């Protein structure tokens, strides 16, 4: 089994189905009798709902039901709220929002759900939706996060004292102020981290069914944490979690966006109960720009204090985070939960960090790959580059002077996190060598000869994985052998592209000696899998892997007892290796599958033996870990059009022990592409006059395509963590965390060399061209 074990570039098991078109995504398997739901959404940023007239829509042939907030009122549905408790400055709880399945009395962003139409076909539902007359009385709105915090700002929700949903401070403001007083150099900047859309290729989809006989609901939807979502739906509806069965089959990408409970998941269930039909909903891509939680959207004021040698003395970061109109389940965690990342891999004397979460009349904001980590890394890594520029120190050298040394581990950063392991200087050296850092000048000259500008950017990033900090969530794995000797891995984690079907089999090969075809991996069904948390925060190999190992150890011990009985030898003399229980003295042996099969034959068991072989384990994997990486990117800019091409990209990752290097490389490459996308092109644009989103479809929202990406070279420098039995640190978000600052720094480097101002992301062709034009104009007037 060694060739399929941990550490090998095993080809994915799940691919065979997916490449044949036999995937099983939510909308691929639907009941014949299903009706279709269409959501009527607000076209306005803010309005009072004076009335809804759905008479004409209800009368249309093929329409089964039209529901508004009034129709749901008697159900006493509980609003969706934050899963993590945050507070306002005075200590009172965060400002909750009336995040109900349908808006009642007021809409608060363009896209807010007002009514649903259930009909025999999607076409009829859409046509009928246009017949629903909503009487909107327009009110003023605020979409900009700075404007929303102004003294005179109008309130998104009139029963709130202001728009500040929560505020969090950390660090030591006094110590920080003292350090700034003593500093030889203070470098300051304000960074806008643009709002982006996730655009998972499979849009959000759901089918709801209500079974009248049992009184139970079944939700089939693309979800990252099906168990959690089931419990939360039960909570919202005031029913037992046992009565909500959730199935999350193949999912076409999640990236954090599919963690949250959304209104439509509750609506399809209610609609099914009311119409006595299964009800399908599939958002169109344009609708997803209104109804999927968006991400990022911060303004951060950053100041770094240094001494004359470039030692980092203190860091001050004040962030305004736009939360949108409603508080989603994880909306507050994103800006609040990952501020520890601001410390980077550096020794920084003191911190003064504050985050203010602000409500605005915009689409609610939630996690997207990195969920606060890319934002934090962007702040520290851009300001470090800026300091290097101002002090005329090589940016790699400036970083080197401040890196936490391996012998300082465990290292308490002074800002939330304590790093357990890592060898940052080695990773820096490896990346410098791999990217030919010293050869940059020659490459720049070559670019210039071709009429292009060349820039180089570095980002050394560290992130928390397996959180939220400080207490990691558990994951649950049950190993269940059946009478055929096949092992079912029942995992509470969820795979939506990560390749869990393969890596759990690798663990089964490694720890149980099971061949791949004797293992099934089952997840995403709350009825099949007893307990689960789901996949988020780069955690599955840490927590799920630890749970697997815990369960596997129990299986081996149970199996050893069975084997001793079947082979009639002393259990203490049995060894287990490569899937075989052996007894050297008698030369007897049995495979794990044979033992499992025999364990179900009652008359060969001892009387005190329980039939069957299974075991389960829940584990949090020993706590959060800190994957870290050095990213170096070089870009080439065409000054005539402002177009930036990423000429080279090199990463050295420490994600601890690697289960499958092929999949790790894929995760890093995919993450880098998303970070690069935000750095160079992605941005949600809202019209300040109407509050409407101008980027309402893929015609206006730019995404990376194949021709934007050159080679992404991934190197590994694992420093295993001792915190979990896997020695793994988490890999899912790492690429995205580093790419945002690395690509941005490279563009800024090229602009700075031209004396051009450095705009904010995305460094779109027009912005880069404009910055270069301004530099040209300045040169000409000088």
């Amino acid at each position, binding site marked *: 089994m060694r060739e399929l074990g941990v550490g090998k570039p095993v080809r994915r098991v799940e691919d065979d189905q997916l490449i044949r078109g036999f995937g099983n995504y939510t909308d691929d398997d639907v009941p014949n009798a299903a009706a279709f739901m269409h959501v009527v959404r607000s076209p306005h940023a803010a309005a009072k709902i004076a009335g809804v007239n759905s008479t004409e829509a209800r009368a249309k042939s093929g329409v089964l039901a039209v529901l508004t907030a009034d129709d749901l009122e008697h159900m006493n549905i509980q609003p969706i709220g934050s899963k993590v408790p945050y507070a306002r400055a005075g200590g009172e709880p965060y400002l909750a929002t009336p995040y109900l399945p349908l808006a009642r009395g007021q809409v608060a962003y363009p896209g807010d759900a007002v009514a649903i139409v259930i009909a025999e076909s999607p076409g009829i539902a859409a046509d009928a939706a246009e017949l629903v007359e909503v009487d909107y009385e327009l009110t003023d709105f605020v979409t900009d996060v700075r404007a929303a915090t102004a003294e005179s700002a109008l309130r998104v929700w009139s029963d709130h004292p202001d728009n500040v949903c929560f505020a969090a401070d950390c660090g030591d403001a006094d110590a920080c102020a003292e350090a700034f007083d003593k500093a030889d150099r203070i470098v300051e900047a304000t960074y806008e981290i643009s709002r982006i859309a996730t655009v998972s290729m499979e849009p959000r989809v759901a089918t709801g069914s209500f079974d009248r006989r049992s009184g139970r609901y079944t939700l089939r939807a693309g979800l990252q944490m099906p168990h959690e979502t089931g419990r939360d739906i039960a909570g919202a509806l005031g029913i037992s979690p046992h009565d909500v069965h959730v199935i999350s089959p193949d999912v076409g990408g999640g990236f954090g966006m599919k963690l949250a409970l959304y209104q439509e998941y509750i609506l399809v269930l209610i609609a099914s109960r009311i119409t006595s039909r299964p009800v399908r909903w599939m958002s169109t891509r344009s609708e997803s720009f209104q109804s999927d939680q968006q991400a990022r959207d911060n303004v951060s004021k950053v100041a770094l204090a240094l001494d004359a040698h470039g030692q980092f003395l203190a860091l001050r970061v004040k962030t305004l985070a736009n939360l949108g109109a409603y508080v989603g389940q994880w909306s507050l965690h994103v800006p609040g939960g990952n501020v520890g990342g601001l410390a980077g891999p550096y020794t920084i004397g003191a911190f003064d960090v504050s985050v203010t979460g602000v409500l605005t009349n915009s689409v609610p904001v939630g996690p997207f790959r990195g969920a606060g980590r890319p934002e934090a890394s962007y702040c520290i890594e851009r300001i470090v580059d800026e300091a290097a520029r101002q002090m005329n120190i090589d940016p790699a050298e400036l970083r080197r002077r401040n890196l936490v040394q391996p012998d300082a581990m465990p290292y308490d950063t002074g800002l939330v996190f304590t790093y357990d392991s890592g060898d940052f200087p080695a990773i820096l050296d490896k990346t410098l060598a791999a990217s030919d850092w010293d050869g940059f000048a020659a490459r720049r000259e070559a670019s210039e000869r071709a009429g292009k500008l060349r820039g180089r950017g570095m980002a050394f990033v560290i992130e928390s994985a397996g959180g939220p900090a400080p207490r990691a969530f558990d994951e649950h794995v049950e190993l269940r052998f059946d009478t055929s000797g096949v092992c079912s891995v029942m995992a509470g984690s969820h795979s939506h592209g990560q390749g869990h079907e393969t890596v759990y089999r690798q663990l089964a090969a490694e720890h149980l000696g099971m061949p791949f075809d004797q293992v099934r991996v089952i997840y995403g069904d709350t009825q099949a899998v007893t307990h689960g948390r789901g996949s988020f925060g780069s955690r599955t190999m840490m927590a799920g892997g630890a749970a697997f190992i815990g369960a596997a150890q129990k299986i081996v011990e149970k199996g050893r007892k069975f084997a001793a009985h079947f082979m009639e030898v002393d259990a203490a003399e049995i060894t287990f290796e490569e899937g075989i229980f052996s007894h050297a003295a008698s030369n007897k042996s049995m495979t794990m599958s044979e033992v499992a099969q025999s364990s179900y034959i009652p008359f060969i068991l001892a009387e005190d033996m329980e039939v069957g072989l299974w075991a389960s384990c829940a584990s949090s994997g020993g706590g959060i870990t800190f994957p870290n990486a050095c990213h170096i990117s070089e870009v080439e800019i065409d000054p005539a059009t402002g177009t930036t091409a990423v000429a080279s990209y090199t990463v050295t990752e420490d994600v601890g022990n690697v289960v499958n290097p092929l999949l790790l490389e894929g995760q890093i490459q995919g993450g880098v592409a998303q970070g690069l996308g935000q750095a160079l092109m992605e941005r949600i644009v809202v019209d300040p006059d109407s509050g409407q989103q101008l980027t309402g479809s893929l015609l206006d929202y730019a995404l990376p395509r194949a021709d934007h990406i050159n080679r992404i070279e991934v190197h590994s420098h694992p420093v295993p963590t001792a915190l979990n039995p896997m020695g793994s640190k988490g890999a899912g978000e790492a690429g995205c965390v580093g790419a945002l600052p690395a690509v941005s720094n490279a563009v800024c480097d090229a602009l700075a060399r031209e004396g051009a101002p450095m705009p904010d992301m995305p460094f779109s062709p027009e912005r880069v*061209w404009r910055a270069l034009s301004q530099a040209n104009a300045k040169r000409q007037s000088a």
Partner: protein
Amino acid sequence: MYTFDYKRPNDTAKAAELLKIEDDGAIMSGGMTLLPTMKQKLAAPSALIDITAIADLQGIDRVSDDTLRIKACTTHANVAASDEVRLFCVALAKLANGIGDPAVRHRGTIGGSVANNDPAADYPAAVMALGRTVITQNRQIAASDFFVGMFETALDEGEILTAIDFARPTRAGYGKFPNPASRYAMAGVMIAQFADNDIRVAVTGAGNDGVFRWTALEEALANEWGIASIDAAAIDEATLLSDMHGAADYRGALIRAMAKEALQAAG
């Protein structure tokens, strides 16, 4: 999409008749613009009259030494891959090969693109710079008179574009800067030189009123065929589009940059 009736006539006269009968019929060729527009509910014709089954509307003919006729329902892929087109004017084949993506080029047609006159489409630049005549079932329209304004052409109600005649340039080139999201042209510039140093420069994607001739550059290139002429030629930014993807001054810069690409390609 709203409901509509689908018709598939096999001659142009029948198509014209259907168009007359229908309240609000629309001619569809490849449907690459029309169907997405209808999916967004921005258009709601009562009937779609699919003209791709009409044999007379397919094909590419070299009608004379200096005239190439491309019939309305010829796909972008077929124009791009046509030896006839390449021999006649390689810039035209290259333009066709840069429209949309391979799948769009398999369906989208020259007639549909030109008749729609999307301000960000590529073909209008080709027709304005290289086109001689736009042919309909009723008449021949001088290419220079065809484009009237954004999404507006000289086609009368009920008139069906059947073919376009292109004039053979001595040299020509096309440069296109695609919108980062939609990949339609943010600036597309076709430069063509004909016998007697007759020069035409057509710009698509950037104008407030759709495709336009950049006469200042035509004159400058007639005097001196070179990059310097592009730097010197004036552009009236007041006539250029401004949107979230690029303000007018940026579009002006793109036009110059694409003109340089076009000139280089023309040789």
